[in-house]
């Protein structure tokens, strides 16, 4: 199949409504697996390679560029020649800084999102499915973490434990997981009243098993979308922390680059443009992929070939 055909198939699949139109008894319609549906979506074809390029540049690129902190070059050199992305106010190679910065930003973005999703699914699932005292207690815990002032917590932790990327990840995850837990809880509450949960109970399955094999998979679509948003939010919040000088100053993230570019906005546009574009494209790609994964995971949409 050519790419054009694939796109048509994916388009046709998307236009299929999630209705429960029944095929005739005894006939089985062919369908595509979750991954095939996901990989054939036009948005995946654009944004998955884009995201992979950024990951590659950020994690393999550092071996091919010079040190991000070596000075001695002409300062504020525009892009071109020996410095494809120019140099900054101290004469450092901006390409090296952007490439190294990606490592920190992507690491923070993805690990915070994964941590939030994991904690959110466990806490939200237990609270929503069991309800009662468990729900009340866990909601209070989530509220406690949600009202923690993240910035002050970060400042205190940085002062006490030193500032490195893992502490930043931990602090962001601690303050950001409750929003994911809320989504999972609402979904779990809705799902626990549905027929297939009763079916599972009638089959004699215990609570944890029902939670894991019936509640969580069906609660995933909105959770995935929220998680993809968290990636973007974590990258942006990290840049805010970097602005306050929290984080590894020898390896600045995209956010830190963007913030230090502020002072030179008039003379050196490239200092703000490149890290800004990187953040924008990564957040966009992750959101689009999260959206696509959501559609592909829902077996009632876009399955019939």
């Amino acid at each position: 199949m050519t790419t054009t055909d694939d796109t048509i198939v994916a388009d046709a699949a998307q236009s299929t409504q999630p209705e429960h139109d029944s095929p005739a008894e005894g006939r089985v319609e062919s369908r595509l697996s979750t991954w095939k549906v996901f990989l054939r979506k036009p948005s995946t074809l654009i944004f998955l390679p884009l995201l992979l390029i950024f990951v590659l540049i950020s994690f393999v690129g550092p071996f091919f560029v010079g040190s991000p902190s070596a000075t001695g070059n002409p300062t504020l050199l525009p892009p071109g020649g020996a410095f494809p992305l120019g140099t900054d106010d101290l004469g450092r190679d901006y390409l090296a800084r952007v490439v190294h910065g990606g490592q920190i930003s992507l690491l923070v973005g993805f690990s915070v999102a994964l941590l939030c999703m994991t904690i959110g699914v466990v806490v939200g699932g237990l609270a929503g499915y069991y309800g009662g005292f468990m729900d009340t207690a866990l909601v209070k815990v989530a509220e406690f973490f949600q009202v923690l002032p993240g910035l002050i917590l970060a400042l205190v932790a940085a002062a006490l434990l030193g500032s490195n990327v893992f502490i930043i990840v931990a602090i962001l995850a601690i303050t950001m997981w409750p929003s994911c837990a809320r989504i999972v809880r609402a979904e779990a509450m809705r799902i626990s009243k549905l027929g297939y949960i009763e079916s599972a109970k009638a089959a004699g399955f215990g609570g944890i098993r029902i939670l894991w094999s019936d509640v969580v998979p069906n609660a995933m679509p909105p959770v995935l979308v929220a998680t993809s948003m968290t990636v973007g939010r974590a990258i942006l919040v990290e840049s805010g922390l970097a602005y306050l000088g929290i984080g590894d100053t020898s390896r600045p993230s995209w956010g830190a680059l963007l913030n230090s570019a502020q002072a030179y906005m008039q003379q050196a546009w490239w200092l703000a443009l490149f890290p800004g574009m990187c953040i924008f494209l990564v957040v966009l790609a992750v959101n689009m992929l999260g959206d696509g994964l959501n559609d592909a995971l829902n077996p009632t949409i876009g399955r019939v070939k």
Partner: protein
Amino acid sequence: MMSVATNPRTADRESREAQRESRAAGREPILRVRNLKVQLPTGDRTEVEAVSDVSIAVHDGERVGIVGESGSGKSITGRAISGLLPTSPRVRVEGSIHFAGREMNGASTQEWDEVRARRIGMIFQDPLTFLNPTMKVGAQVAESLEPTSRRGRSARIAEVARFLRLAGLEDAEQVAMCFPHELSGGMRQRVLIAIAIAKLPDLIIADEPTTALDATVQARVLRTLDDTVSQLGNSLILISHDIAVVASMTDRIYVMYNGHVVEEGGTAEVLARPRHRYTQALLRSVRSLSDDHLDLYSIPWELRRELSKEVASRAS
């Protein structure tokens, strides 16, 4: 035709066989419900007695029907027998539910899970909402296989296909790879039957199993249920508002009205010579639907008022 004998026998199965024999010797029913009373909350402070003073006995291999109109308490009775009433302190269950030598009223969740995992199979009304939409049908059947026949991927697939076929799905291998929404209503209901029989239960409770299906599919699914129950030799409780459905498939029948059993007896006997006025009226209204010579009959209010009085006097 496949038989149960090909299934690997487990210690559990043998002990159940022994229990079955001892019950048969003493003419002991597998399920005996005595004076069951169920109170359900209706509002913040009010409760309704959905089931009052119901006694039911089901012997090994027997098929028992529970008929009654909407709100008669037949489904709540079925749920109480399988321990699936909502777990709230305001749901009160009184009386005795004696299943296979164990008193189940007041049993812990673990005890109920044990019984439901191996011994009671449930078939529900709406086949779409009662299947997990994100799990393939085959995996859902596999979940209720006996632990010994679950071992090994190929053995598992074969077992799943066997039960799907037993439930009347010819393309069993293909159906197993489908998600529920890819199947028709009739096929989904057959999948539910396959799930219920895959654990080789002693008792199947079918609560309005064909109400959501159209009439032609209904007949075929019922025939399948009938065949599988005959082949596996388990007991069946068929709960339905449709007296015709119950008549064709059961040995004994309980007629419920307003939470009470108003008449019980052999199905043929009750249908031929209904003693209670409610049963008579119910039969007359069903017959008036199918017989062109009769005017459409619905149960008159006077009779309902008298029935309510009768039922109230019984309760006190």
